[in-house]
């Protein structure tokens, strides 16, 4: 092989290896840092895995928010208004737009006892905004109450 071709071959091999390596790394990292979203129904019926970071969402059930008097611990219930409820335990400050009846998303781990230990509570920042995860759910609830 002449040297020019050799250089080109090396370059091609290098590019292929680099692209393959980057893609593999991206896939792997994605796999490890990806949080699946589960609606209340799947949290309750056991579809959602325990002891791994996931997201769940629904509406905060009216009258379910309870604050501990001595710490920042708080518990509340998330419901889909279709019969699936689960409780969430969280320690910290809730976002401004966290309210009973609001659609929210929690991120954390589901315990064996069915209580969702949230590390993060995400509420929307705008009255008119609905997180895409909850759109299907909201439509379902609306459809159900309408019929």
């Amino acid at each position, binding site marked *: 092989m002449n040297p020019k071709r050799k250089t080109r071959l090396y370059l091609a091999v290098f590019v292929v290896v680099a692209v393959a390596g*980057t893609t593999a*790394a*991206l896939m792997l*990292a*994605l796999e*490890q*840092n*990806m*949080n*699946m*979203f589960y609606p209340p129904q799947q949290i309750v019926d056991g579809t959602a895995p325990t002891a791994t*970071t996931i*997201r769940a969402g629904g509406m905060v059930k009216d009258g379910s928010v309870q*604050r501990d*008097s*001595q*710490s*920042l611990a708080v518990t509340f219930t998330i419901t889909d208004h279709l019969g699936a409820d689960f409780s969430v335990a969280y*320690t*910290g*400050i*809730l976002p*401004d*737009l966290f309210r009973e009846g609001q659609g929210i*998303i929690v*991120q954390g781990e589901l315990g064996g006892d069915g209580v969702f230990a949230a590390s993060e509570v*995400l509420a*929307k*920042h*705008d*009255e*008119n*905004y*609905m*997180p*895409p*995860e909850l*759109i299907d759910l909201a439509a379902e609830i609306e459809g159900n109450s309408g019929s």
Partner: protein
Amino acid sequence: MIAEFGQLSLALSACLALASGIAGLGYHVPVLRSLRASTVSMVVGQFVFVSIAFVALVTSFVNDDFSVAYVANHSNSLLPWQYKVSATWGGHEGSFLLWILIMSGWMLVLATRGVNYPPRFFARVLGSLSVLNLGFICFALFTSNPFERMIPMTPADGGDLNPLLQDFGLIVHPPLLYAGYVGLAVPFAFAVAALMENRVDAAWARWSRPWTNFAWAFLTLGIALGSWWAYYELGWGGWWFWDPVENASFMPWLAATALIHSLAVTEKRGTFKSWTLLLAITAFSLSLLGAFIVRSGVLTSVHAFAVDPERGLYILVFLAAVVGGSLTLYALRVAGRRAEIGFKILSREFFMLTNNVILVVALAVVLWGTLAPIGYEALTGDKISIGVPFFNLFFVPLMLTLALALVLVPALNWKRTSWRAVRATTLRALPVAAVLGGVSWYLTSPKSAVVLAALILAMWMILTHTLDVWRRLRRTRSQPLAYWGMTLAHLGFAMTIMGVAITATQSIEEDVRMAADEVVELGEMQVRFLGVREVDGPNYRAQQGVFIVTEPSAESFELRPEKRQYLAGGNMMTEAGIRGGFLADTYISLGEPLGEGAWAVRLHYKPLVRWVWFGALLMALGGALAVTDKRYRRLRERQSATDAAAKGAV
């Protein structure tokens, strides 16, 4: 009447955009010859009519014309006047009108610089920009008309502007950011014109450079401001969340950063041409992708524009047309062209290439992490989100490698550099950098190897650049402004790296329950909570907490974070109390009342957090400085001199 006037103006500007697009792109068609003479005036006309439309919308806001639906949804009679003005771009429709205004503004500035470029090439540039502007204006007119009326169901008062947006940040952040986003259309149009005219050469790169730098500087400022705004306004004390909308602005920035470097190589050495073209196309396409992400609502984000699938579809089709069209042109013109490679590993070219590879990989990571949820849902039907660790996992090593490459920059020459010259600059600086970095690292806790690496690399970068400045100044007194621009931008990058490394690892964050008169330790400081009192603002009522913070030096200061309830919408908002400093910020925000006078309180101590933005500011300043370099002006004079000579000959 005013709103209708605005809408009419906008429609007129669309007609002008169509005409100047045809005139510019059809420059060579004989029938259109009479039209082409007026291309520039049609571009000016677009700006004039878009301005009228914009002023009409602002006027509707200032006059509280709630019969205009957009005004009714984003303003309120109680809103202070400066926010009534800035509320114009506080929602989807108005912010897009601002986008169009800025686009027309860039075109206006470009139109006045026509003498610098060959007429036919220049016509192509203006033509491409006009077609893009036409697409934007039609988007506004057909899917997001800000002038739509609500008659006869006119509300008595408006629904109010989202409290988060009632802030100085909203006044300046979107215009700057958009100036960057849309500014990238200019190098894009230059690339398209170069492809159409078959003149992808050093001159094209030289023409394109100032515009690219300028747009990049705006984008840098816009992103930094957005980060700062999120920091003090959202009340979480974070400055970057890898939120899809942040990523949407970061991706074009990464591409544009690669582009300004690649353009330098194309101008100076005549290589990397196809790559530079591709980057110019990519950077602007990513701007459009950003617009799609923000305005279609496909991804969960803190930035909330009301969701409308029709808009998303329009942008997607527009994006496909722009990307498809420009890439087809690229394939037709560039394919099969062979590049001459004439540089050694130890050369400026090679390190520019390294810089580009790193930035493009970083771009791929952000793109992947941002779009993966959409792809995943399309493929499996399951909804996922991508965690912050995903991005950090890649960004930490990538940015450190980039920093290492930057260390060598001052020592590198074009084509080839002797190993001795590189050694002379870099190795001499290494021990000093190691000592400085090591000592500052010794002061950190908890300690991490990554922080040590980041500190040493940043110091090293600063030292090699400073050494270079000193050496050059000794040789000749004056250096070109472009050189100062580059140095400043690189020093800014070093500063940002230090800021990120320190604030990400050394911040102290505590969420605590505090009763009145309780004292809590925050690092070495003591925070005393005096209690909460009621305060009235112009359009809100606030619970204001009063805190006394005592520093180790026994000096103390007061912070007054607020929890505001806005009268119009009933929205709650947290206004953090911040004591900003060059070396550290103290940040307190109120959570919720817990009864018996106790409150949930968030206490933050954030060392060097401001360096993240100061660094970005230096980068933007560097970019702007490079634009003012004499070189470009001299070129213009030379160009017009040759033109005049040519005219004289005819």
